[in-house]
């Protein structure tokens, strides 16, 4: 019997600013959570995605959860889904839903200026322990998660 390929990407789900904390971060409680903010129009975001996929493979899903949050326009949900499916990106992906982007940015992290790619790492208790601004590598993603996992 042939081995199954990677699971198809789950449908993109919308998240409002006030839901971010509970739905994207707290729902994974007990695990380190890495949240990557990206957009289909953002070249460095697309380019770093394989590094994030590789980095995640080094960790058990019991310990680490990865979530994506697309900052694309809500008119582009199909493009987001297409990118995730064609790249076989094995992460849950949310899409920011806010009439005013600033409300979403501030709900996520007041010190974030809104530039993507942007990655936040939360420890097992849900505390924010790392901010990774700009494009990352497999090593920098992995290092941030390892630090967050350290007791």
């Amino acid at each position, binding site marked *: 019997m042939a081995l199954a390929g990677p699971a198809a990407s789950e449908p993109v789900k919308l998240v409002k600013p006030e839901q971010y904390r509970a739905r994207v971060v707290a729902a994974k409680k007990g695990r380190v959570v890495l949240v990557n903010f990206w957009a289909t129009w*953002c*070249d460095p975001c697309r380019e770093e995605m394989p590094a994030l996929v590789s980095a995640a493979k080094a960790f058990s899903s019991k310990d680490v959860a990865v979530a994506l949050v697309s900052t694309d326009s809500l008119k582009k949900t199909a493009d987001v889904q297409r990118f995730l499916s064609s790249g076989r990106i094995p992460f849950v992906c949310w899409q920011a839903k806010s009439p005013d982007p600033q409300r979403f940015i501030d709900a996520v992290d007041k010190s974030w*200026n*809104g530039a993507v790619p942007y990655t936040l790492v939360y420890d097992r208790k849900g505390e924010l322990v790392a901010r990774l*601004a700009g494009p990352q590598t497999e090593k920098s993603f992995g290092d941030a998660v390892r630090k967050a996992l350290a007791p």
Partner: protein
Amino acid sequence: MKRRTVLAVVALGFASSLTAPAARAGALKIRAPAPDFTLPAASDGKAVALKDLLAKSKAVTVVFVATKCPVSNAYNTRMEALGKEYAAKGIPLVGINSNKTEPAAEVREHAEKHGLTFPVLKDDGNRIADAYGATHTPEVFVLDPKGNLLYHGRIDENQDDPQGVKSPDLRNALDAVLAGKPVPVAETKAFGCSIKRV
């Protein structure tokens, strides 16, 4: 609450993992003096000096722009319209392209193709983007005649639909400047493309 979280993390010895976004460190503060610059216009290579623009204006709008960024491109028409409208009232608009991936020739072609008549200056080595702490495109800085920062942030909140804009932040700032009033909201944020630095 967030402040407490950060302090707790520092106390636990994770300080080194909390890297503040680079933009924060260098970002200009409202009312602080903005660095002067003299940069070549992408159209003809002629030097444009901020201090010369300030000397003959009620304020100057500086916008960091890009040729390939869809967010910046979504604002081409709006930047051109705002540039024309407010230049006539004494507030010219100047674009700066700091992306290492977008050479002057490309910036010139892009401006011609999209009918941008305001000058777009080429910031080789992203020195001016660094001096201003600019991180996005598009990202706006409005300066008073002394070169002090009056407004920093987005053009408006709605990149998709110019007709559906509910928060015309740059326009509000420029109108306040012209009316001699304080800028109502001096700092805003928006999703945007990172400036491609050297």
